[in-house]
Every structure is written in C-alpha cells, then in structure tokens.
C-alpha cells in the first residue's frame, strides 16, 4: 500500500514538474512561430521593394510602388525587429544567433536564410516538450 502510495506521489510530482516545462516550451514555440511569420513578411516586403518597386521607380519612372511599399516594409521591419527583441529577451539565445537575426533584416533574402535556425529551435523545443510529457503518458 505504502509503496503504491509513494509511486502515485512520485508520478504526481513528475506531472507537476513536467507541466510548467511543457507550458514553457509551448509558449516559446508559439513565439518562434510568430517570429518566423514576421521574418517571412519582412523578407517578402524587402524583396518587393528592392527588386520590383525601386527598379520601377528609377528605370521606368513609376514611383507609386515605392511610395506604397516603402512604408509597408518600414512597418514590417519594425514589427520584425521588435519581435526579435521580445523573443531573445526570454533568454537561451547565443550572441551570434541574435546578431544573425538582426543583420538578416537588412539583407535581401536574409530573413529567409534564418528559416532553418528558427525551425531547428522549434523542433528542439517540441522534442523537449514531448520528453517532459513522456513519463506521465
């Protein structure tokens, strides 16, 4: 009886420890998904601005695209950089990774190049979430 009680208590403790770890991983995965979406939007608006709107303005005399896409990209850039700050402020990021995330915003296709880094981080968090949920299932 006693050992069964102990086993149950041990299981409950493991569940209690696993729950916050799983919740933390879930919150971080959601945040990384948000950052990944914003990085795609930032990258796409930068490519449109640099490779479509600016040539149209300078070589075809059509400034309308730049007038519209300039502010749209500006807003996407701000939202992306702010989300980078929000994401890395939680901790667990190397200095090199943070520099990579910020520099990518200034280079065409840069944020797309970070897709692998963010996917890898998400996968590792998903694995840790599964590990923490493992004993109770």
């Amino acid at each position, binding site marked *: 009886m006693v050992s069964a009680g102990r086993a149950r208590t041990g299981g409950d403790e493991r569940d209690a420890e696993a729950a916050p770890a799983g*919740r*933390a*991983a*879930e*919150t*971080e995965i959601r945040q990384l998904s948000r950052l990944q979406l914003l990085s795609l939007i930032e990258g796409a608006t930068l490519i449109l601005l640099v490779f479509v709107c600016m040539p149209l303005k300078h070589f075809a005399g059509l400034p309308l695209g730049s007038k519209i896409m300039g502010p749209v990209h500006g807003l996407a850039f*701000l939202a992306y950089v702010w989300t980078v700050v*929000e994401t890395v402020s*939680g901790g667990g990021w190397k200095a090199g990774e943070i520099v990579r995330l910020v520099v990518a915003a200034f280079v065409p296709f840069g944020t797309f190049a970070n897709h692998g880094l963010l996917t890898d981080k998400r996968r590792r968090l998903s694995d840790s979430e599964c590990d923490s949920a493992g004993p109770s299932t």
Partner: protein
Amino acid sequence: MIYSALKAAHVASVIIFVGGVLVDAVFLSIASGSGQPAISAVRRWGRTVTTPAMLLAWTLGLTMALQQGWFASFWLPTKLAFVLLLSALHGMQSGRLRRLEGGQTPAPNAMVRLGGLLTVGSVVAIAFLAVMKPG
C-alpha cells in the same frame, strides 16, 4: 518659449498620469478576481493594447515626419533614440513576462529593473523634444 515648455511639461504629465491609471486598472482587474493568473492578464493587456498602440505610434509618427520633412532636424533623430529605447524596453518586458508565464524565472536585467525610471525619463525627454522641436 515658456508656453512651449509648459505645453511639453503638460503633455509629459498627462502621459505619465494615464500610464499610472492604466497600471491601476489592470492591477484592480486582476485583484478583483478576473479569473485568470496575473501574468496572463498582464501579457494579454500587452498583446491587445500596449503593442498595437506602440506600432500605431511608430506608423503615425513616421508618416508625420515624412510629410513634414523632419528627418533633417536635430530634435527628431534625438527623440527617435528615446522612442527606440522605450520600444526595446517593452520588448524586453514582454519577453520576460512570457518566460514567467511559462513557469520560468529569467535572470534580472538592469534595463528591465530600471524600467519605471527609464520610461518616465524618456517620456519627459520625448514630450519636450516633440513639442519644443529644438534645432
């Protein structure tokens, strides 16, 4: 000159006053038993009110600056430095709240610890620069 200084001080006071009223409103909503944990309530407020307001402030501010040609002035880039500081502070606060909600206790950060002082100081500087437009 005196009128502009008074106006700037008035704007700064109003912003700080409204910020305090909002803190009280969120705290009282949590304390009166809104049902959700305090950190979740604060994070929800940030997501639905503070962050959209910040993005709107950036959008409208940059639109005005472009329309009026203020980028060549002294005061706007100086003001932008304070705005960047406040935006970064909000990002750091948001990141830490996310970790706390996830059940973790992130190490204290000097900028977040001094958040109140930095916010009040930046708001005063921003109000004076925006209203008096020196240079």
